[in-house]
């Protein structure tokens, strides 16, 4: 089997915040009835986390689970364990009407860290990113400039952005432009 590489091989840019392509990440799309016992058990055994509430991310010992829509979850795990996790989920959901798909290689992940990360992201997405509006355990599916993306917080001033791998270079470029020194907004607190 050929060696898997991430979209931009860890590209990095430091301005008033730092943008890093984080490398390979295991991501699994799970669709089905989120309220069912089977779904709760499957997600629990795969990640250790519970089924998240609307627009929330729940974190377990083996990975995290993000709410994508009323019938869809995104399970995020280490890239090395993604096939095992898919197997666990598929087995646990075998009896119900559900879908488990490994989408790891269709995605790219970026980290924006530093004091100005909130500002940098707010310039690109139509989302209120002030601390009072955007909760630390929230996921927001939206757009970054012209392409669909989603992001959540991993720390006080640290965000992770996921997008399609085919637009990874575009997203890196707009993020790089957004964090370039001189572009600080100092609006969000």
């Amino acid at each position, binding site marked *: 089997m050929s060696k898997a590489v991430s979209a931009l091989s860890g590209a990095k840019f430091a301005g008033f915040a730092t943008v890093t392509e984080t490398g390979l990440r295991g991501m699994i799309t799970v669709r089905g009835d989120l309220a069912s016992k089977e779904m709760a058990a499957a997600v629990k055994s795969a990640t250790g986390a519970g089924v998240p509430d609307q627009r929330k991310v729940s974190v377990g010992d083996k990975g995290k689970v993000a709410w994508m829509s*009323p019938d869809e979850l995104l399970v995020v795990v280490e890239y090395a364990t993604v096939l095992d996790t898919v197997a666990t989920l598929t087995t646990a959901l075998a009896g119900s009407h559900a879908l488990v798909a490994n989408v790891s290689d269709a995605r790219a992940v970026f980290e924006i860290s530093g004091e100005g990360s909130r500002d940098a992201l707010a310039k690109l997405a139509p989302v209120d990113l002030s601390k009072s509006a955007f909760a630390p355990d929230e996921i*927001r*599916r*939206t757009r970054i400039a012209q392409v*669909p993306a989603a992001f959540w917080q991993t720390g006080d001033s640290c965000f992770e952005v996921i997008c399609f791998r085919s637009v990874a270079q575009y997203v890196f470029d707009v993020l790089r432009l957004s964090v370039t020194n001189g572009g600080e907004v100092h609006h969000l607190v």
Partner: protein
Amino acid sequence: MLTLQCPYCGVWAEETELHAEGEAHLKRFGPGSSDDEFESYLFMRENPKGVHFERWRHSNGCGKFFHAARSTTTLEVFGTYSAQTLEPPQDIKDKISAKYPNWSWRDFS
């Protein structure tokens, strides 16, 4: 700028996160229908000055279709609701009636 609340994910999404998908509450006429019914299903659309019902899709978000009731003249939004319905919910109709007592739109009023 139009801001609608997606009834599926609860996000207050502005226009660029959404995609307009035409008129709401269309009844499909397929094989076996008359030419007139098929023509009206395919081509005949409301173009009101005032209360209108539209279908939107939260395309840069949860991806779901939903319905919105709004005024085309004032851009006032009366509400958004699930697309799994054949007519607007009563509370939205009441809200419209409070503002425009004699409104009507296709078979609704």
